[in-house]
């Protein structure tokens, strides 16, 4: 049994303009000790998926349905008290912005100790020792002294390390990292990614990493989920996804990326904008922007189904497989026809 099994997750928000379907039927699993990458552009529902699993959406005006089984227990239907036990203990989360996710008026040490004492029956001294151990583990220099510093005395990269230390305090089985390196510079990003990889090896936690950076996903994830307009459009082990992407949106994402390892004179651009989730397009949600659109795409929404010779690789697209293999090969050669 997988550590986390999400089935047909839906999160809808009631707004003045109507119902926003922010997550609309999402299913995936996370295995113990593995890393799942969720990629997609802003507004595709990556963050809301994870907030829903963690029960962190505001209760008012939110309608959630589906199942999220964590070690066999459904996170969505369990009593709030039980969820509070699990959150921060068995499942921990790292947020994008380390500037705003720490409390500015308490010292780092105090915030770490609070998180330990909430879940464990220890003395303050033991909790402090544990906090210190983790600050050292995440590479904060002179950790004894820095325990009593306030968040503003730390740099962005250091704050993100503190956030990671806080997430790891109680040896979580699952770590959800929502754009953990987006606000950081490349050299700091390299430090943080290396740290997360090392900690995963040492602590054996499973990680869900949410990002819009395909480079980060390629280097950290075992499995990848691509989201577009509140739905999963492709899901596969990382090598399969990058070597043989099977969905025009994924091609667009890969082609629109300027990169160091491929020479391109002109980037493939995906025309238009992501659709509104108040009123998503009929049929395939990508069809208005898709250069390969057919009549069936406008009428019938494609199901997420495995490709014929690779049952682990799921995709939602009506195109036939020969065409897709041909286009994926072209993309690999760096010459995908520009979308008209």
């Amino acid at each position, binding site marked *: 049994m997988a550590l986390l099994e999400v089935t047909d997750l839906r999160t809808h928000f009631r707004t003045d303009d109507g119902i926003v379907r922010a997550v609309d039927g999402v299913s995936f699993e996370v295995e113990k000790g593995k890393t799942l990458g969720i990629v997609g*552009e*802003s507004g595709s529902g990556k963050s809301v998926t994870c907030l829903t699993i963690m029960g962190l959406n505001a209760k008012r005006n939110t309608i959630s349905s589906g199942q999220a089984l964590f070690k066999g227990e459904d996170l969505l239907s369990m009593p709030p008290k039980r969820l509070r036990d699990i959150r921060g203990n068995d499942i921990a989360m790292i947020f994008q912005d380390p500037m705003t996710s720490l409390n500015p008026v308490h010292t780092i040490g105090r915030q770490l100790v609070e998180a330990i004492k909430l879940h464990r029956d220890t003395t303050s001294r033991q909790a402090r020792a544990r906090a210190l151990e983790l600050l050292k583990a995440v590479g904060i*220099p002179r950790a004894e002294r820095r325990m009593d510093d306030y968040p503003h005395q730390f*740099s*962005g*990269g*250091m704050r993100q390390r503190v956030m990671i230390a806080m997430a790891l305090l109680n040896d979580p089985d699952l770590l959800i990292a929502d754009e953990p390196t987006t606000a950081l*510079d*490349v*050299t*700091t*990003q*390299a*430090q943080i*990614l*290396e740290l997360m990889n090392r900690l995963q090896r040492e602590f054996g936690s499973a990680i869900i990493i949410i990002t*819009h*950076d*395909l*480079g*980060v*996903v*390629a*280097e950290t994830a075992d499995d990848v989920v691509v989201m577009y307009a509140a739905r999963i459009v492709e899901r596969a082990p*990382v*090598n399969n996804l*990058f070597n043989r992407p099977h969905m025009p949106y994924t091609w*667009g*994402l*890969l*082609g*629109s*990326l*300027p*990169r*160091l*390892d491929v020479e*391109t*004179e*002109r*980037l*493939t*651009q*995906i*025309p238009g*904008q*992501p659709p509104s989730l108040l009123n998503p397009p009929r049929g395939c949600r990508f069809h208005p922007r898709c250069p390969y659109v057919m009549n069936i795409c406008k009428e019938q929404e494609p199901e997420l189904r495995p490709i014929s010779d690779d049952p682990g690789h799921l995709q939602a697209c009506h195109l036939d497989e020969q065409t897709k293999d041909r286009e994926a090969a072209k993309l690999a050669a760096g010459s995908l026809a520009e979308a008209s």
Partner: protein
Amino acid sequence: MSTNASTNADRSYAGTGSELLAVEDLKKHFPVTRGILFQKQVASVKAVDGVSFTVRSGETLGVVGESGCGKSTMARCIMRLLDPTGGKVVFEGRDITRLSRADMRPIRREMMMIFQDPYASLNARKRVGFIVAEALEVHKMGTEAEIKRRVQELLDVVGLNPEHYNRFPHEFSGGQRQRIGVARALAVNPKLIVCDEPVSALDVSVQAQILNLLKDLQRDFGLTYIFIAHDLNVVRHISDRVMVMYLGKIAELAPRDELYREPRHPYTGALLSAVPIPNPELGRQRKPIVLQGDVPSPLNPPAACNFHPRCPRFQEGHCDVDPPPLYSFGTGHTAACHYPLESWPLTEEEMRRPSSRPQSRPSEEPAPTT
């Protein structure tokens, strides 16, 4: 494709484009004061500290560096949005560093800026038509009807519907707003456009749209760009030459392909090795050279070579005593390092062990590149 390739070749360093902008020893120090009534200067933040380079007509100079390295301050000094503390900015052969507001006005028409945040850089209370037309009106370029026609033409050029003339910025998405920013910069037919992180706030698919648009406009209107970004992939894609900045100084300046193929400064090497590659097999073989610590405060930068506390090839008694000048490594390639990288890529081990002989003093002759 082939035409693009040939124009790129024409713009290689030895190209003939005339010099549009020259920056000489540019400095911008922000005073740090203490005291309420009598403000006494106690220190200064050396945001830009002696930067010199030239930009030729029709080329794109990419500027990379981490937050706080002075990229944006430098851009604002060039635009005279900030007054430099020292040094010179020469635009089309004319020193504009000390020009008065009135004398500056006709020159402002020649250089425009595109800003990072498409949400904050457009006035939310003005209609798009007004935003794009404002510069035309300030510079009195045409009658009302002419200006309106010009604005609609501009909206069309940047890929927006000209009929959206009367809409407000909030009615547009992030990518569309950045197009408005581009239209505004183009309005007065500038020669130089300074783009300060124009795509950092955008999603990848939209980022590609804007990058392609900027390239097309450069081809069609012969624009010159200074393109500031922290994303090395983006900078490589758009630039002809690339300048790497660290703590207010130039670490390395080279033609694009040379910088990415043969970086000489250890900081450039560390930056390049830190970029994740969207290819699982290649990416996982990559061994990033992880720098220790953070960028030091520009309030109190390290002595001599300002990169020495984080540098893997730091040599005590040399790098922290003797500030490295910009050594030459062939045509148009300079780097400020006593112990430049011998080849690329290097393993972390090789990175730490520089060849024992330090770089010779710069001379008139370009230093041998071996």
